[in-house]
């Protein structure tokens, strides 16, 4: 076995269980945070926790972190970028509609 294939298989079971525990903790945290009065920041905190969980899943379970192909990382980053354009431009429109 070459170094290449051994590094590709390097994700250990311990790491997977650690990420799993972190995701469960994140779920508990998001339910708890929803019941605390943070004023206008409740939604922001919920989204930050959700995004952290999504990143953990993408990086470790979907193996983005160990991906050798740069083109693949480009696809992932451009997906997030286009989603951002979709949401940000729609919000810029909706938020500045003085007539509705």
């Amino acid at each position, binding site marked *: 076995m070459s170094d290449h294939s051994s590094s590709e298989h390097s994700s250990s079971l311990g790491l997977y*269980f650690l990420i799993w525990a972190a995701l469960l903790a994140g*779920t508990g945290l998001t339910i708890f945070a*929803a*019941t605390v009065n943070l004023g206008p920041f409740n939604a922001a905190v919920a989204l930050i*926790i959700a995004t952290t969980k999504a990143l953990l899943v993408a990086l470790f379970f979907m193996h983005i972190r160990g991906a050798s192909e740069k*083109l693949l990382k480009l696809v992932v980053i451009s997906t997030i970028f286009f989603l951002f354009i979709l*949401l940000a431009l*729609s919000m810029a429109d909706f938020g500045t509609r003085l007539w509705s």
Partner: protein
Amino acid sequence: MADSTTMAAPTEGHNPALLHHFAEPQQQRDAASLGMWIFLATEVMFFGGLFCAYLIYRLKYFGEFAAASQQLSVKLGGTNTVVLICSSLTVVLAVWAVQHAKRTLLLGSLVATIILGFCFLGIKAVEYREKFEKHHVPGPSFQFANVPVPGHPDLMANPYHAQMYFSLYFVMTGLHALHMIIGIGFFAWLLWAAYKGRFTPEYYTPLEMGGLYWHFVDIVWIYLFPLLYLIDLRK
């Protein structure tokens, strides 16, 4: 002119899992991953449109969205979140098992994934049933009278605005559930193929692609849960 059958015939030391138009297994795996990620990009944009609609109506009708959201059971939604996270773990265990040629763990993880998938759909069915019983399904029989807006005991929620929340709830969770059904079907096929011994540490591309799909569906739920179930619960 060389005969095409002799060209396609495996040469000495040829990896049977390596298709002839790829130079090496790594290139074949990267090509499959790239295609799958482009498909997932279209899925992100597809769900993104729904999230955008949700965001706009939530800003517009925040009080009604909070009132309607609190008709959902955080217990059931939270349980489903845990079920999906556990299923994502069993999926990575399946991939790890095939990489290390551990057949029992592979088959066990795939069975566990399918069972957890059915658990999710079962809990979802219980929630949908409750919505039908309470007349919270958008349509002619929709009822949402005399429900106060959270934080404003004297202000009653507008049923038409609450109906908007439930429309988005059913479309988003319904599409997510459809993805779960497709995922369970695909994993049932993976289980059959794994049972037949089709996957080896050198070739397990379908399992890896199925895993990417399953994790994506998990990520969608990670966003749906706080956005649909946890609006304005603060005391």
